[in-house]
């Protein structure tokens, strides 16, 4: 026995090209939608991960633009101002502070990096306090520095991959021509740390020809009043305080504009796809008026015909939607690369995080909008009178 579902499937297969084109339209819309939702979630997660993996919630640095400074801190860059290392002693006295670590950031132009050279970022970190801030670091090979002023480096996973370094290799600091020995390579963290080269603070100060630092990372005690601490830190001379939660909010605000644009494109794509659905199903109904009339002489109620045509819409939208989700999952990495090229700042790790909940939500949205689009053609089909179809034979 044949079921209405089988009839609907066979109806769709009559005009294969038209059905396929409609499916492609739905698939593309779903792909864009899922990727957008995935980006919305993934970007924030990646940003949170980057910030959490900093190991500290506050940074104190010499006065300047705090957000630029924070971005440089995350991404690497030149032009940071310096402050006295003794600042660490003032900060640690505050009761809200659990740990502090002094950092010197340096960036040198490496002509061998990339196609036309690039910036190599070096983090001068204190071997006594910095590892404690990053207890989640795991070494792929080797370990931390052997002494506080050793001519050694610990490389992030991607930095080591990029430079093809192994533990025991020597690496040259560009511009300065100082050789350092690789003593440790970190496991992948999915954050900016993957691209960082860590050097003992004293050694980097020696290379840079300074006894100052650029930043103090502060880990705040659990349940401490962060706002109060920020106010107190602002009393220190010529410093600015950067809270990563503020940085995150600012970056998210900047990204919101891009999100709105992409969402607008997704909505337009959905509307176009839905017009495609209406066109396909309506054309199919108009082409089958006689046949629908004959189905009614066989005992099909208007509701049966309505459901039959609606089932066709449901099939198109479900198949197109599932294919779109499949493509979004399959090409999430490509989307990630494209998004990274567009965005001014992209945190480490995956930017597009697609999960089952958002996939189902998108599929539900596509099917719901599709069924809405199918209402009119289905209603038209339900109203066909058998006599009209018989008269049409002329």
């Amino acid at each position: 026995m044949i079921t209405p579902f089988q009839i609907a499937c066979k109806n769709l297969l009559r005009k294969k090209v038209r059905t396929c084109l409609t499916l492609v339209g739905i698939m593309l819309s779903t792909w864009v939608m899922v990727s957008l939702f995935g980006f919305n979630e993934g970007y924030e997660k990646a940003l949170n991960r980057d910030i959490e993996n900093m190991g500290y919630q506050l940074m104190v640095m010499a006065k300047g633009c705090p957000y630029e400074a924070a971005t440089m801190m995350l991404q690497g860059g030149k032009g940071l101002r310096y402050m006295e290392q003794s600042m660490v002693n003032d900060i640690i006295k505050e009761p809200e502070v659990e740990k502090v670590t002094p950092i010197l950031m340096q960036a040198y132009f490496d002509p061998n990096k990339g196609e036309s050279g690039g910036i190599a970022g070096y983090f001068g970190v204190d071997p006594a306090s910095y590892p404690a801030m990053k207890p989640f670091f795991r070494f792929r090979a080797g370990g931390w520095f052997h002494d506080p002023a050793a001519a050694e480096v610990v490389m992030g996973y991607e930095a080591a991959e990029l430079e093809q370094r192994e533990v025991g290799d020597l690496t040259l600091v560009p511009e300065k021509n100082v050789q350092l020995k690789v003593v440790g390579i970190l496991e992948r963290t999915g954050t900016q740390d993957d691209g960082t080269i860590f050097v003992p603070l004293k050694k980097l100060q020696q290379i840079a020809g300074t006894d100052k630092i650029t930043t103090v990372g502060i880990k705040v005690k659990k349940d401490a009043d962060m706002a109060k601490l920020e106010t107190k830190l602002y009393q220190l001379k010529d410093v600015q305080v950067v809270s990563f939660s503020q940085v995150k909010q600012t970056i998210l605000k900047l990204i919101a504009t891009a999100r709105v644009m992409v969402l607008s494109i997704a909505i337009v794509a959905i509307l176009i796809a839905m017009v495609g659905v209406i066109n396909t199903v309506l054309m199919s109904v108009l082409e089958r008026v006689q046949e629908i009339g004959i189905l009614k002489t066989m005992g099909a109620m208007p509701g049966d015909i309505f459901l039959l045509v609606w089932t066709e819409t449901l099939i198109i939208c479900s198949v197109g939607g599932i294919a779109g989700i499949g493509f979004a999952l399959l090409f999430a990495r490509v989307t990630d690369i494209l998004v990274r090229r567009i965005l001014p700042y992209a945190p480490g790790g995956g930017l597009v995080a697609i999960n089952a909940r958002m996939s189902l939500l998108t599929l539900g949205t596509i099917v719901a909008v599709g069924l809405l689009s199918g209402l009119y053609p289905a209603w038209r089909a339900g109203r066909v009178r058998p006599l009209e179809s018989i008269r049409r034979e002329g």
Partner: protein
Amino acid sequence: MTVSDVLLEARDLTRLYTRGSEAIRAVDGVSLTIRRGEFVSFMGRSGSGKTTLVNLLGCLDNPTGGELDLAGRKIFGEGKPLGERDLTRVRRELFGYIFQNFYLIHTLTVRENVALPLAFYRKAGVEDEVERLLKMLGMEHRMDHLPGQISGGEMQRVAIARALVNRPEILLADEPTGNLDTKRSEEIGDILQELNRNGALTIIMVSHNPDLARLGGRRIEMRDGRAYES
């Protein structure tokens, strides 16, 4: 003739159309009675009103006046036209239809075409009717063929099987051989006669073909919307 023998009774059935300011009486006060098991042929020239009358008798259209009783139930005559749902209910209970153009669905096999009405409505005990009817009509070897792979005569056999799958009381045939050559027309005529004689099926047929119309035990000629027994 007992009351229970009467399957269809039309009284003063009228169908009026308007074309601009002109009123056309396509069916003009036709009264007739059809008993169970009768084979009634309607003949007449084009525009004589035979198809319009059969459409009214087959509940494919509402009359503008008059009454129609089917199987003891009053269908038309309550003063207001029946909606599509009500007409469908009557049709699926009582009628099977075949048409000149067969109206088979070309993406469905012969078996699926015959089973198609059962997707929407199924009377009790008709589960095996698809195979039985196709065998009875000599189409068992074509069950899995598509309509495009069979001849016109075979297509009409499939259409007959489809019309009968829900065991209707009345088979309504509108020019069933209009698209067939003489040999195929005779074959279809024989099948209809067989169904009427051995299956006790009531048949209402419209045909231009006098040979086919002669198969009916009762012939009614339509002229200017009026029915004349011949």
